[in-house]
């Protein structure tokens, strides 16, 4: 059964191998310096501002909560999408109820202004 998953296993092994090789090559071939800029936080080439130890804003957490809940909704959409042809309108109405209940929560979040980013 799980023979069909060998490509994924191979991908995981290859990714691990690649990560180890990249780190190993940069250790073997690279030149070691321990000067000022080396200890700066790396922010894609932009000079970092502020401390990296500061807590991140709470907005990220709210967006993460929303993402998690709608992620779960998507998980339930997949099996429904497979059987929707067989079930017809019954399954469609069932899914509609599910989504409408979740939409209530979504409009609550919109009303609270949790998605505003000032």
């Amino acid at each position, binding site marked *: *059964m799980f023979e069909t998953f060998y490509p994924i296993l191979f991908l995981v092994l290859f990714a691990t191998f690649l990560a180890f090789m990249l780190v190993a090559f940069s250790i073997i071939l690279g030149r070691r310096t321990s000067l000022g800029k080396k200890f700066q936080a790396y922010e894609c080439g932009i000079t970092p501002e502020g401390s990296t130890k500061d*807590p991140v804003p709470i907005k990220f957490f*709210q967006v993460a*909560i*929303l993402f998690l809940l709608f992620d779960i909704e998507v*998980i339930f959409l997949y099996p*429904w999408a497979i059987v929707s042809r067989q079930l017809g309108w019954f399954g469609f109405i069932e899914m509609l109820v599910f989504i409408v209940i979740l939409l209530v929560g979504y409009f609550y*979040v919109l009303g609270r202004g949790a998605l505003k980013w000032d």
Partner: protein
Amino acid sequence: MLEVDGGIVFWILSFVILVSGFMVVSLKNVFHCALALVLCLFTVAGLYILLDAEFLAAAQVLIYVGSVAILLIFEVMLTSKLADKRITQSNDQALVGFFICTLFAVAAYLLIKFNTIWYPLAKSALPSDNILTIGKYLMTEFMLPFEVVSILLVAALIGAIALARTEKS
């Protein structure tokens, strides 16, 4: 003992699961714990594939590795004092707790191995089309739990947003 479905793959997966699981409960830095948890959950998804539960494996990767772990890592970064390595992360009952848990694991293993009569099937008769069967079950037999889950999700969403709101005052 050594004969198990999945053979060497099972042993590799269970080794990774147990090592990373122990890292989750024992590392000093909570951020590293969260990363070890990601590894552990991902390997458990591999175990689900070994047990013919492909859709559950996908759900595990999407929900746990994709979102719950992100949420945990955000939480660690929000309460950033945790990254301080000098704080001891376990309380002073660690030795007693370790003893009790080892006892629990050994007792559970002995019960599973010797004190229970299992009736395993000669050959597993799982439906070949995993996600199709799950969809049928969810839409017919488990219709009520399926709809109640959406109410639970809305309750969790509203509760979490209401608790984590930013105070303007």
